[in-house]
């Protein structure tokens, strides 16, 4: 929820609270006023009636629907004035209407008179309803005004904030562009932009030095490896080595090569992660697949694999080198783990590439498949698939693995809409 909406809700809640409290106070005050007024009115009326009776006006003339005067026989009832609330049926409105009822027995001349005077509450009720209606209108108007106010505030006052937000959202670490924040005179936003500026420049610095470090480190590692390899080469060529020593040297040789390959793989992985492979092109993946299949023709026939291909045209926006690496790694993987004399199926469908090979079940958790250094045998480096995954992530390609009925299946899903963004 937007901060502004939250603020508005709080404003409205507080306003509502005040309006309710105000309403209650107004109600109580008016009610008291009206009650007093009614009481005074009834007492006045009664005095007028008493005077009229004293002046010998016949009581028949004095009776109407709000005052009833009767001659009382019972002198014992003479006494105090009684006020009470009562409901009286109204023929016109067809409902019970609240009245205040004054009742007194007076001795005027020789006679006793029972005087009943009624005063309807209906006006005061209407008055109260009017007050509540006014309050509700006020509340609605407040709501509308605050919303409009909010709209303009968010357009002007919050503009620098949303502008900054947008800039951060579109910012990509590793891109050459620097964020230039909009000038503002709001202190909070100045502070925010200032902090963001400092933070991003620090991150960019760290990122650059990290990038440099990885590259330099890998470069620096290759050189001593080259020396070891060169010395091992010389040792191997030297005559009269015993078989045992030769084996040791062979081990060093293999380990050196392996280390060098791990190093290269990690460097590649880091570069992909750092998005250093730029430059997207429309790559015809079916061509890449076919080209690579040609390259692997020999091994496929040497392993006596039955190759089934179903290739439709499919292209995707990506870096050509990474496309090559991605397809090549998956293809190699399928060939490598295919059972000799088994099936190898490569299918390209609409928005889908499927690599499928017959093979023994995995000895590892398929969940870990794309993690670094997860390997099923001692020979592989355990980097190939994690490189594939990294490339897929970069270009919004989904990759899935399944083992169905003796077939290892990798599927690449291309979602072109996502990739365009």
């Amino acid at each position: 929820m937007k901060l502004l909406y939250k603020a508005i809700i709080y404003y409205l809640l507080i306003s509502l609270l005040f309006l309710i409290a105000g309403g209650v106070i107004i109600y109580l005050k008016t009610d008291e006023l009206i009650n007093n007024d009614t009481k005074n009115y009834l007492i006045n009326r009664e005095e007028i009636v008493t005077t009229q009776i004293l002046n010998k006006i016949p009581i028949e003339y004095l009776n109407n629907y709000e005052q009833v005067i009767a001659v009382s026989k019972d002198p014992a009832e003479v006494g105090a004035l009684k006020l009470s609330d009562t409901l009286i049926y109204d023929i016109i409105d067809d409902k019970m209407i609240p009245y205040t009822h004054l009742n007194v027995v007076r001795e005027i001349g020789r006679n006793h008179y029972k005087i009943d005077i009624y005063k309807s509450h209906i006006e005061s009720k209407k008055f109260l309803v009017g007050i509540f209606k006014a309050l509700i209108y006020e509340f609605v108007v407040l709501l509308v005004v605050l919303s409009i106010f909010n709209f303009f505030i968010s357009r002007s006052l919050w503009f620098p904030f949303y502008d900054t937000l947008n800039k951060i959202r579109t910012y990509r670490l590793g891109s050459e562009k620097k964020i230039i924040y909009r000038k503002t005179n709001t202190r909070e936003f100045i502070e925010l932009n200032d902090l963001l500026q400092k933070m991003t420049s620090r991150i960019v610095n760290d990122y650059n030095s990290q990038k440099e470090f990885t590259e330099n480190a890998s470069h620096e590692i290759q050189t001593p490896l080259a020396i070891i390899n060169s010395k091992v080469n010389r040792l191997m060529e030297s005559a009269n080595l015993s078989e045992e020593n030769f084996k040791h040297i062979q081990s060093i040789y293999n380990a050196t090569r392996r280390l060098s390959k791990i190093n290269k793989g990690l460097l590649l992985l880091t570069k992909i992660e750092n998005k250093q492979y730029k430059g997207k092109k429309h790559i015809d993946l079916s061509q890449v697949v076919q080209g690579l299949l040609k390259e692997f023709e020999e091994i496929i026939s040497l392993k006596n694999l039955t190759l089934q291909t179903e290739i439709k045209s499919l292209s995707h926006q990506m870096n050509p080198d990474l496309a090559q690496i991605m397809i090549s790694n998956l293809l190699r993987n399928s060939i490598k783990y295919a059972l000799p004399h088994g099936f190898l199926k490569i299918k390209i469908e609409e928005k889908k590439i499927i690599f499928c090979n017959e093979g023994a079940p995995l000895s590892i958790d398929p969940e870990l498949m794309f993690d670094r250094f997860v390997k099923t045998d001692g020979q592989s480096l355990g980097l190939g698939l994690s490189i594939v995954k990294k490339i897929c992530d970069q270009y919004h390609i989904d990759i899935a693995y399944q083992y169905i009925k003796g077939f290892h299946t990798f599927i690449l899903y291309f979602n072109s809409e996502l990739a365009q963004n």
Partner: protein
Amino acid sequence: MKLLIVEDEKELLNDLLDSFSGEGQLCEEAQDVCSALEKIYLYEYDILILDLGLPDGNGLEILQALKKCNKNTGVLILSAKVDLNDKLTGLNLGADDYLTKPFDFAELNARVRSIFRRRKFEGNNLLTFNEIEMNMDSDEVYVNSQKITLTRKEYQLLQYFMVNKKRLLTKEAIAEHLWGDDTSIYDSFDFIYSHIKNLRRKIIEVGGTDYLSTVYGMGYKFDLL
């Protein structure tokens, strides 16, 4: 063949010098951009083996200078930079080949020879070892003057052996020479074995000698018996 080896790592430089001198080549060295430039301006070389990361600059400067003076020198970049872009930059600037460190001498040797052959077309494009003769223009192989037909891989294999005679060639190095970086899928090296078996058979069939010997079951050597 006259070589200039530009390499700032002393140990590596010495091994390279020893290795090429051992092959009977004339070698000179330079350890930085400055002295390398001086040498290429003053002398003529057939092959330049070039490291890129040098103490006083990038090896590519030397390559550019060389191309500017139009010398017919073959260039092989031998670099620790493994990135594809570095390789492409080097090749675009006119290098003939690019090999990353660490490397095997046999591979380097084979590549240097190949550059040399391509550059110096002086009629002598034959590789001979006793009765085996390889014509690298027509890609034909003769044993005792009798033509034998080899597959592409067998041909590459024989050429690799003949260029690197007397050297011990490990299975891994052979695999990498034949299949490049794809060796990982050739998990057991049976494939090399089958190629070698066929090659041997084809040579022996026409009365040739089998000059190949295995070394402790781990590598091969092509040499006089």
